[in-house]
C-alpha cells in the first residue's frame, strides 16, 4: 500500500512536471526536500527528546495509571480487543491524553510505543482491528486548544485568534466520529470475511 502511494506520487510528479515545464524545479526539489527532511528531523528531535524525557518522569511517577483511569471507560468501548491492564492500553490512553492537550511531539512516541505493543499480539503483517481504529484516531485531531493556528492568526493581525475554537471543537468531533464509524464498519465487514475463512478451514478439517 505504502509502496504504491510512494511510487504514485513520484511518477505523477514526473508526468506533471514534464507537461507543465516544471522539470527544472522538480529536479532541484528532489535534493532540497530530502535535506529539508533532515533539517526538520534535527529540529523536532530536541522537542521529541524533551517530551519523552518528561513523559518518562510522569510514567515513573505513576501518572500514566491515573490518566489511563480517567479515559479508560471511553477507550475501553473503542478498543474492546485490548486488555485494560496491558501496557498497550496505558500507552494508548497516554497517547490520547497527549493529543487532547495538543502535545503532538509527545503523542507520537507514545502512539508508536502502543503500536509496538499491539504488534506483539498479531502474527502477520496485516493491521488488526485495534491498529486500524487507533491509527484513524491519531489521524483525526482531538486537540482542545488549536494553539499553532491561533499563534499564526495572531501574527497576521487577528483581533481574537481563538474565536474559532467552538467551530474547531464541533468540526473535529464530527470528523473523529466519522473516522471511527468508518473504521468500525470496515472492521466489521473485513472481519466477517476472515471468520468465514476460518470456518471453512474448520469445516474442511472436520470433513
Amino acid at each position, binding site marked *: 500500500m505504502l509502496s504504491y502511494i510512494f511510487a504514485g506520487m513520484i511518477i505523477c510528479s514526473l508526468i*506533471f512536471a514534464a507537461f507543465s515545464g516544471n522539470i527544472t524545479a522538480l529536479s532541484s526539489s528532489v535534493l532540497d526536500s530530502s535535506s529539508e527532511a533532515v533539517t526538520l528531523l534535527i529540529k523536532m528531535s530536541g522537542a521529541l527528546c*524533551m517530551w519523552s524525557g518528561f513523559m518518562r518522569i510522569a510514567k515513573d511517577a505513576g501518572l500514566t495509571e491515573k490518566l489511563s483511569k480517567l479515559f479508560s471507560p471511553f477507550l475501553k468501548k473503542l478498543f474492546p480487543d485490548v486488555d485494560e491492564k496491558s501496557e498497550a492500553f496505558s500507552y494508548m490512553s497516554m497517547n490520547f491524553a497527549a493529543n487532547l*492537550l495538543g502535545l503532538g511531539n509527545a503523542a507520537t512516541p507514545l502512539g508508536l510505543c502502543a503500536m*509496538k505493543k499491539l504488534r506483539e499480539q498479531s502474527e502477520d503483517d496485516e493491521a488488526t482491528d485495534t491498529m486500524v481504529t487507533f491509527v484513524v484516531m491519531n*489521524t483525526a485531531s482531538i486537540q482542545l486548544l488549536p494553539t499553532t493556528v491561533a499563534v499564526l*492568526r495572531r501574527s497576521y493581525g487577528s483581533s481574537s485568534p481563538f474565536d474559532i475554537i467552538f467551530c474547531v471543537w464541533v468540526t473535529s468531533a464530527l*470528523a473523529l466520529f*466519522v473516522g471511527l464509524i468508518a473504521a468500525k464498519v470496515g472492521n466489521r465487514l473485513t472481519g466477517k470475511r476472515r471468520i468465514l475463512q476460518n470456518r471453512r478451514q474448520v469445516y474442511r478439517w472436520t470433513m
Partner: protein
Amino acid sequence: MDYVIPVILSAVALYGLIRKVNIFESFVKGAREGIKTVYVIAPTMIGLLLAVGMVRCSGALDFLTSHLAPFFERLSYPTELLPMAILRPVSGSGATALLTDIYKNFGADSFLSKCASVMAGSTETTFYAVTMYYGSIGIRKIRHTLLSALLADLTAMVMCVVTVSLLM
C-alpha cells in the same frame, strides 16, 4: 496560553519529586528513547517528504485545483480553500504555508481565513501519521485505515465551512 507548557513541565517535575522518583535519571532515560524514535522514523520521513516535495513542485496540485474548481463552485464550496484541503492530509508544513497565504491575501479575520483556520485546527497530517505508525512496526497491509482517515478529513473540510457559516 504561554503558560500551558511550562506549567505542565513544572507539574510533572514536582509530581515526580513528591513520588520520590529520581527525575533527572528518568528524564535522561526518556530522552534516550526519544532519540531512538528519531533514528527509527528518519528514513520514513525522508522518503515521504521527498515524494511530497516532488508533488508540490511538479504543478500536479495546481492542475488538480484548477480542474476541480468548476465542480466545487457548483457545490458553493470556496475554491480558495481547495489547495489547502488537498495538501492538508499530505503535508503539515505545506498546508501551514498555504494557510498563511490565505491570511496574507484575505486578512486573518475574514470568512475564508476562519474556515481555513478551523480546517487546520481540526485535521492532522493523515498520510504522515499512517506511514509513521505502520512503518515503525512493519505492517504492510493497512486494510481500510487510509479510507476511514480520509473520510474524517473530508468531513472536516466540509464542516469547517458549515460551522463558520452557521456558528460565527
